[in-house]
């Protein structure tokens, strides 16, 4: 026989920091080492700070957008905690908006 507790209800889960920040296996997943997409974004961000030609500067900006979109999609689809998925969705929305608005 199974029984449900009040902890499993949606309102109590939404107010639970543990539910937001912990992965299914109980690990705290607020911060993890950068994955490849985030590494590319960081490198492109640093490259963009240098004195580049106009074409290379535009390409570096494009790579920054692309890398963040890939990272955000990865987080939305495979994020290890609800916080990471929400963060991915926010970053994805921000990147798409900045691309559309320019």
């Amino acid at each position: 026989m199974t029984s449900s507790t009040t902890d499993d209800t949606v309102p109590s889960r939404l107010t639970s920091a543990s539910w937001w920040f912990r992965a299914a296996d109980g690990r705290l997943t607020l911060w993890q080492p950068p994955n490849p997409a985030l590494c590319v974004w960081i490198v492109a961000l640093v490259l963009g700070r240098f004195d580049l030609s106009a074409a290379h500067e535009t390409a570096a900006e494009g790579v920054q957008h692309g890398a963040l979109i890939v990272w955000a999609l990865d987080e939305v689809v495979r994020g290890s905690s609800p916080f990471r998925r929400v963060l991915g969705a926010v970053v994805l929305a921000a990147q798409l908006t900045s691309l559309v608005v320019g």
Partner: protein
Amino acid sequence: MPPARERRLSGIAGARALRWGALALCVRPAYVLTEFLVAAATEGGYSFLSDSVSRLGEVGCAADYCSPRHALMNGSFMVFGVLLAVGAVLLARTLGPWATALLVVSGLSSVATGVAPLDRDATLHAIAAAPLFVAQPIALIVLGARLRKDRPRLAGALLAAGVVTATAAVLFVLSGDGPASGALERLALWPVLVAVAAVGFAATRLPSDSTGTSPT
């Protein structure tokens, strides 16, 4: 169709795809020849050390420089890009989803580079080529990590090639029109041709669902 016959036909189709995919990747080092063929016909002087590969594909001619075989160069960007994308798709079960996707992106980027010559629109050309310089080194590193158990020596070479090409790509962007920009660009591109060809050759001897773990 009986299940046994269906499995056998599926296996034959898989083996055929593996062979064609491996062939597509193994012929790609020939791309280097096209660079030499095109450079040999340039007028006004072309340096492999200081001039970018993209200059070979410039459509227009100036008083001090012309690349009469630009169509061959731009065509080779497209043909060898298609070979990379198609080869990666055909070897997807061996390469894994991440490396396959990265190599397909690289192949499409190469095709786009051939469509957008440098002297027509430098910014569009840079945007078209950027994924190639980003995705290829990562693909090599991903492949190296994936094959480290089954093919440790190849995996080590792939990881080293990935690090070298990534570093060269960053330095190429930083160098701008510097005296070594052509050499840096080629250091970012040429090793990938050999490394991916080696993967294509090895793919015919690897388990099709290689995940980096030895079969039990």
